């Protein structure tokens, strides 16, 4: 059976794409962010993952409000990035992992998560940039991928408790996949930030640090908050922490922290990185 080697949660701000393209990773603005990654690269090199399940949210590249799934799973042989309209470079396609896609789909529906399935799916910066950060300058990406998209655009969003259970179901699906693959689960987005309204620029460092800590020791802690509570505490886009929580759910059982980094600001966002493995 496949093995889950661990989980990595990481911020996905579009602006990161420009820093990578312009090779400004060591500029004073970017250094505290990019310097968080080498320990995670070392850990990944040891884990020898072949497959990544990437839990993210689309920002209006693949999905529009005409059809907005709460949970969607990709089942394509490869995933194309495309013009998102804000001038960041378009990246080469990412290889899919069709066997795991369909195993996930069957297993999730069996567990009563009635997901949308996508045999064609464009992936935006929330999928591509974390892979670029974790496997820099490697094209094609050295892992085969399965995108899992969660709606964080149009309310109502799935509750934190539902996302945690969804993650657990993803974890059980991976572990029951008849394959020798080594799978890493990646959650993207967050942490606290708000792009719109008079409260634009809102950041809550205290909550972010508590959330990162609790994700290791007591992941159900955050499920006490409703989605509007989480918006109030972390900003309208801070709710992307649902992707982090889903990833934590997929790591069934107890986990330990491999490495963490937190830096404010990247663009308008509190950036976070948290690698975890089962103990």
């Amino acid at each position: 059976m496949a093995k889950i080697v661990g989980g990595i949660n990481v911020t996905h701000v579009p602006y990161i794409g420009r820093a990578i393209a312009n090779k400004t990773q060591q500029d004073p603005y970017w250094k505290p962010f990019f310097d968080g990654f080498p320990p995670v690269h070392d850990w990944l090199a040891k884990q020898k993952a072949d497959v990544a399940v990437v839990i993210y949210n689309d920002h209006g590249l693949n999905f529009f409000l005409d059809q907005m799934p709460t949970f969607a799973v990709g089942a394509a042989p490869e995933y194309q990035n495309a013009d998102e309209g804000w001038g960041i470079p378009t990246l080469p396609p990412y290889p899919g992992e069709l066997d795991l896609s369909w195993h996930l789909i069957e297993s999730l529906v069996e567990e009563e998560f009635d997901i949308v399935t996508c045999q064609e799916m464009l992936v935006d910066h929330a999928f591509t940039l974390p892979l670029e950060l974790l496997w820099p300058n490697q094209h094609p990406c050295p892992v085969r991928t399965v995108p899992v998209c969660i709606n964080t655009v149009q309310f109502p969003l799935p509750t934190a408790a539902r996302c945690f259970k969804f993650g657990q179901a993803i974890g059980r699906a991976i572990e029951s996949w008849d394959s020798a693959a080594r799978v890493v689960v990646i959650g993207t987005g967050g942490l606290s930030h708000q792009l719109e309204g008079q409260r634009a620029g809102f950041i809550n460092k205290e909550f972010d640090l508590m959330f990162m800590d609790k994700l290791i020791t007591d992941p159900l802690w955050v499920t006490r908050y409703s989605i509007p509570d989480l918006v109030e505490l972390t900003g309208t886009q801070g709710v992307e922490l649902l992707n982090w929580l889903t990833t934590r759910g997929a790591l069934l059982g107890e986990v330990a922290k491999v490495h963490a980094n937190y830096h404010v600001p990247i663009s308008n966002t509190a950036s976070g990185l948290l690698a975890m493995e089962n103990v």
Partner: protein
Amino acid sequence: MNGGKQKRVIPGTTLFDGDMARKGYALNKMCFSFNSAENRAEFLRDKEAYCDKYGLNPQQRAAVLSLQVLDMLAAGGNAYYLAKLGGIFGLDMQDIGAQQTGVTKEEFKAKLVAAGRN
């Protein structure tokens, strides 16, 4: 419009719920079209005609033509789609943040840096 359920009020924040999604559909659909370079060029050639093509109402049209983000939000715009419109004018998230909060871009950036020190 929301089945009588009390809405949560978070100052300076609008939850993009069903009411906003209904209200802003045409505006958001227009902004979604800006994923295409061809459409961005068409918009720049004649902004008013492009707004008409997508059936924007007068409130949405005025907000787009004056590039006032808070007005676009009030007209049902969603931040993710509006950002694509901002991109056409080379506005980044600090420009948009500064405009919405009524400060200069430098002041807005300083506020973000301060949030990291707390």
